């Protein structure tokens, strides 16, 4: 089977890079397709964003390579997906060729309104890959009793991230090593309340002063703009142990941390899955537009005021394992499940 994975931003390009590796390990041909305008200063190593086929989705539609595909994984903006599939199927009709099945899905785990919105935009695909049983259940509820056909929805696990941290970073439960590092996954879009980013920054500042033996690393989970969208005066007079970490090494930083913290960055799933104490900052409320409703049952949502010093963070309970498994961590053979589903689709269409 020859599979092309098309992506249009750094998040989906990185996820496709990982998925392509897993598919190749299972003996199938798999190629990534993307041409990102910016490959530097993202959270991911630049080399992982270099695609096998450096074309945009639209350019790929015009390339003869697309007709070699037995399956197409299209992880572009949900809004652009329908256009892509319509044009691709139209071209195949014109050329009297059987279109390859198209699979798609959100890069990161979603729940509630966000999941409904995403899946509705992707219903033109032949197969939808979501993360865990929670998403499959929600999709089933969304389509309850529908007479309109809806693509099969399958679980692929947390396929956007490596299953394990880098070599040497695996650590058992209760073996958080000193000196300690708190990694704060900083987002562009959250917290959304006016002044809240600055408030969070002040909180980190206070902690840094109170716990000089700790290092606090603020790691952007998005491409870092200059000057940063996060704070305007990030480098002036701050404590030495409060650091804005370099880009292109997000997973390395998470793998090394003692505690990981965020408002709603999906990369907290990596910290949780790798057994790092994790905190979802609940101080700014649970809001649909803040993307943190998915974490309601995680057991990791706290008020920062509960932690006077950073050592207090080491006492928190681990993430609710039932919740984490239902969000995708319980599925460890996602790529194989994907291949099985694609084979099934091919047999059904032939």
């Amino acid at each position, binding site marked *: 089977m020859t599979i092309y994975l098309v992506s249009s931003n750094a998040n989906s390009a990185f996820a496709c890079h990982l998925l392509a590796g897993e598919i190749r390990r299972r003996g199938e041909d798999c190629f990534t397709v993307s041409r990102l305008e910016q490959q530097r200063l993202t959270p991911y190593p630049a080399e992982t964003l270099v695609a096998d086929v450096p074309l945009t989705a639209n350019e790929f539609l015009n390339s003869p390579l697309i007709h070699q595909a037995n399956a197409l994984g299209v992880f572009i903006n949900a809004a652009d997906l329908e256009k892509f599939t319509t044009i691709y199927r139209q071209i195949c009709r014109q050329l009297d060729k059987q279109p390859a099945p198209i699979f798609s899905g959100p890069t990161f785990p979603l729940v*509630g309104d966000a999941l409904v919105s995403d899946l509705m935009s992707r219903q033109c695909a032949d197969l939808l890959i979501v993360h865990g049983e929670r998403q499959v259940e929600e999709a089933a509820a969304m389509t309850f009793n529908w*007479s*309109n056909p809806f693509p099969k929805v399958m679980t692929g696990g947390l396929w956007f991230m490596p299953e394990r941290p880098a070599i040497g970073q695996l650590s058992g439960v209760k073996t958080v090593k000193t000196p300690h590092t708190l990694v704060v996954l900083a987002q562009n879009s959250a917290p959304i309340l*006016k002044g*809240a980013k600055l408030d969070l920054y002040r909180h980190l500042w206070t902690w840094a002063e109170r716990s000089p033996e700790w290092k606090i690393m603020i790691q952007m989970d998005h491409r870092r703009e200059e000057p940063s969208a996060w704070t305007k005066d990030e480098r002036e007079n701050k404590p030495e142990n409060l650091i804005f970490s370099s880009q292109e090494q997000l997973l390395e930083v998470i793998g090394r941390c003692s505690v990981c913290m965020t408002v709603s960055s999906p990369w907290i799933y990596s910290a949780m899955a790798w057994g790092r104490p994790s905190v979802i900052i609940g101080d700014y409320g*649970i809001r649909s537009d803040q993307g943190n409703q998915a974490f309601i049952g995680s057991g990791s*949502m706290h008020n920062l*005021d509960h932690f006077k010093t950073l050592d207090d963070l080491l006492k928190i309970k681990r993430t609710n394992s*039932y919740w984490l498994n239902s969000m995708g961590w319980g599925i460890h053979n996602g790529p194989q499940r994907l291949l099985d589903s694609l084979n099934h689709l091919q047999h059904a269409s032939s």
Partner: protein
Amino acid sequence: MSRPIHLLLIGDSDSQLLACEALCRFPQDQEIKITINAIPKEGTPDNILTRAAALGRLWQFKIGQVFSHPELKNFDAIGVFLTGSKIAEFRNALNLLPYQKRPLLFCGFNGVVLEKFNEGLSWRLGYDLLCLNGPRDQEALDRLIRKTPYENQPIALTGLKRNDVATITPQAERPKEMVFTEQVVMPKSNSDRARMVRILAQLAQRSPNWNILIKPRIAPNETTFHAFTDHIRYTIDQTLGHAPTNLRIDYSPLPELLQRARIMATVSSTAFFDALDFGCRPVVMADFGINQSNGSHVFAGCGVWCRLEDIEDLDQLDQNLEAPSQTWLDWMGYSEACRPANLISTLEACLERRQDTPASEHQKPIPAGYLINSSLSFTQLRRNAEAAIDERNYEEAKSLLRLATLLRPTHRNVARRLRAVQCNNRPLRKLLLTVTYRDVG
């Protein structure tokens, strides 16, 4: 329980009061004493208050007056039908009152929940009892709280059957009328709303022997919790100029229209279920496709999903229109299994359980790691209030600031901010908000 149950139901908007009314269809064999408190609000239609008064006793106190009312502690249970933050505010405030045993608290959702269910639950979790419509909501709640400390949250499925109708007019005796129940924000965009009006006008033209009655969600002088720009009558004027003579707006009460008309069409209104109560056959307008922003994804499985643009005329629809899918109706909560009697039986069970529990255990602390909106801290409430002020959502800001004053009654800036947002004089409010502003992060 042999003695009567005393219930207080609190609502602040027309739709919340209608939800209270729908809930009050309790079994005759159980004596329930009902008091409705309609929080005074500009724009609440008089007929809604009249209907509320008919249910028992009508109070019209502001929320602060309710708390100081000497009879408050005598109620067995209080149903709070307000928006999210106000629901949390009410619970926190009631817990501060020096009662040995406070009344049980319950709340619910108003009609079919189309969006923001998880966010809504985050304000409601921890109430003594949650009313849900049916299995659809129950499953969604279960997905959210499974294997968490909230797993045993008591619920009652109270259903979507909201009207007891003594006599249903047979279809053959009804005039050829189709009621279209308009919703203020579904669809939302002006272009979609214009298209909706055009589709109805063309259908009216193709069906000259029928009348199409557009029932506006609200009269032009009324308010609802949704922000909207143009009343439907302006959309009709702007889109059609002169509407066909058999297409018109009708402000008659919805029950009256549903009692009479043969067909009711909607995009995603809870009135779908009211139509069934009155023997009016519902149809869902599928012309905008399955679209989350219209709430139509919730109705796509109803079995009467129909593109009005595609039908020949209303005679054809009248002839071919089938009953909604029973499987879907059961799942949504329109069934005998989901009814207000479930609220009473669950309340009785809760009251009996509580008799054996010391008062100190009635208020359980929020488990570590399982934060919800109703447990927001003082600073968080201030921040959210400031965000609401930024969005000019002064009602929300008032509620959040009142909640903050409950936590810190002596905090001067919060008291000043609250007085500022409570000011109805717009220029003065603006001035007060400017002079009382403090950066809260």
